[in-house]
């Protein structure tokens, strides 16, 4: 597997890169990929909300004034926010022919994230029917990482967004994932100090390779 640490990448640019890589992966020209990156402030809409902006709480004008872009995307899921301090992972993995189970794939992504944050002492877990990884924060479930995936001829794209040092106030712009009764948190908030992104990238890479059995060692 090929891991690419790309740093800050614009959302459109990342979409185009994924598109190219998905096509190359479908043609078998490249190995499975894991893209790790951060996005500038952006709100993205999943297929569920393509024509429904009710979960975006501010007007397009107001968002534009704050430098926050809004994109429609082909991934699964509802609306979410990306921005600096959040580790975004886009695995471009061919699930053909033996891994053709989208639920298994999503549960595996959750497993990667649960294990990665466990390396930092955070005990995250799954919630039934609510994809993503969650922690208990003062008695309330708070989402630490969101997952939204697209599959095209069993090649995956999009993926996960893990709040490392994310400016959580930005989530106030939306109703994350359309879930209104739960919170959003970050590793920084849970641990009380910021965490070097590189360390989290390393942990996620390690756990991704472990869970997906793609270790290059």
């Amino acid at each position: 597997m090929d891991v690419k640490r790309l740093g800050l990448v614009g959302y459109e640019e990342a979409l185009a890169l994924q598109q190219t890589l998905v096509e190359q992966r479908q043609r078998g020209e490249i190995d499975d990929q894991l893209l790790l990156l951060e996005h500038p402030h952006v709100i993205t809409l999943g297929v569920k909300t393509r024509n429904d902006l009710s979960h975006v709480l501010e007007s397009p004008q107001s968002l534009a004034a704050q430098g926050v872009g809004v994109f429609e995307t082909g991934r699964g899921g509802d609306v979410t926010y990306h921005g600096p301090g959040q580790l975004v992972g886009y695995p471009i993995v061919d699930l053909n022919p033996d891994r053709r189970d989208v639920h298994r794939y999503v549960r595996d992504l959750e497993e990667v994230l649960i294990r990665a944050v466990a390396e930092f002492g955070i005990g995250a877990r799954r919630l039934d029917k609510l994809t993503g990884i969650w922690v208990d924060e003062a008695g309330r479930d708070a989402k630490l990482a969101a997952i939204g995936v697209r599959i095209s001829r069993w090649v995956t794209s999009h993926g996960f967004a893990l709040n490392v040092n994310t400016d959580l106030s930005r989530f106030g712009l939306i109703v994350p994932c359309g879930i209104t009764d739960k919170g959003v948190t970050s590793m920084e908030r849970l641990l009380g100090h910021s965490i070097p992104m590189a360390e989290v990238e390393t942990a996620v890479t390690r756990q991704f390779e472990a869970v997906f059995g793609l270790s290059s060692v």
Partner: protein
Amino acid sequence: MATNVVMPQMGESIAEGTIVRWIKKVGDQVDRDEPLFEISTDKVDAEIPSPGAGVLTEIKVKEGETVAVNAVVAVIGSASAADAASAGPAQASPSSGRSEMPEAAVGQPETENRKPEAESRKPEAESREPEAGGKQRTSPLVRRIAREHNVDVSQINGTGISGRVTKTDILGFIEGGGAVKAAPTPASRPAAVQHVPAFKAGERVEIVPMTIMRKKIAEHMVTSARTSPHVYSVYEVDFHHLSKLREKKKQEYERNGAKLSFTALIAKATVDAIRAFPFANASIDGDNIVYKKDINLGIAVALDQGLLVPVIRNADEKNLLGLSRAIDDLATRARSKKLSPEEVQGGTFTITNPGIFGAVYGLPLINQPQVAILGVGAIEKRVVVVENDAIAIHPTGHISLGYDHRLIDGADAGRFLTYLKQRLETFDESWM
């Protein structure tokens, strides 16, 4: 010559799917494998390619509707037969009299035209085959081995990607006499390599599952041994001067509620050495070396079963009294299991003390992602050669540094240990 397009099975536990978008409209010409519609399930959106070429003659399921797997969602007909293939139930049912097969994969063609299509779909049909019997996805090779040995693949715990059974798994299973293990559920399945048991209950053994801590230690140690090429240097330290100083100050520390232990004294000198040699406080991250500005000192604490490494954050900002208190506090709470998770995380360098069990010196494994670990051997009275070739009896001990040779060379370790040794042997009262 119409082809039914069905809601594909996107996973074992998935019974239905929602159509979110038709990429093609009725009347559109489609090629086989051209994206036809998008479905959504869980947090996954999937683009479904057309099972055949022709004209999309009918869409049976509207955008936003959810239907069962294998339900017919559309019909593709040849251009001339566009009108012929319009009627029919929304779902495949045996009573429809058509040759629809509920178990079929995406787009089972209805007529003679099926041959080339059936062929092109073969890999798909094959990967679905085991679903009838077991639930695990397997490769043709594994299925062949399974047939030859009359083994039920669903009885084997797969170690492959997404839990699939690999050739090694099945061969190990056959060799191990086919011991039956419960199949893990997808959600809780540990994806790490699973092991075919070498021992069975009933033999003259006692089989005890590892505690979570044991498993964590095992995982960490294997990772460490695999990640870092470990090299060791061992230095002998004369503790004559330091033990006298310790005796002198001990009571003063006790009055302040702290135990002036050798561990605390060594921790203090080590922090100074780390500050002098930042490579000891680093991590390797890909092709980069990450030098950490905070010195977070981990102290390995042996428990009745297992061990913990509580971390003294910003150890370089503490004086000896502060360090002594912190070590005491963390060790006590580690043994009574009252540490919070943050207190065992974020260490940048670790000290371990195999000497308390009598070891002359230890060769510890690095606590990843750190790059070095200091082992402290037993401090005992030994015969030493002192000034003017005289022989004396001094308390001495051995300090060993385990280091990651990817980053630290022998000369670096030598400089670090020489500095530390000197610091210990000439410990200044003003540092106390």
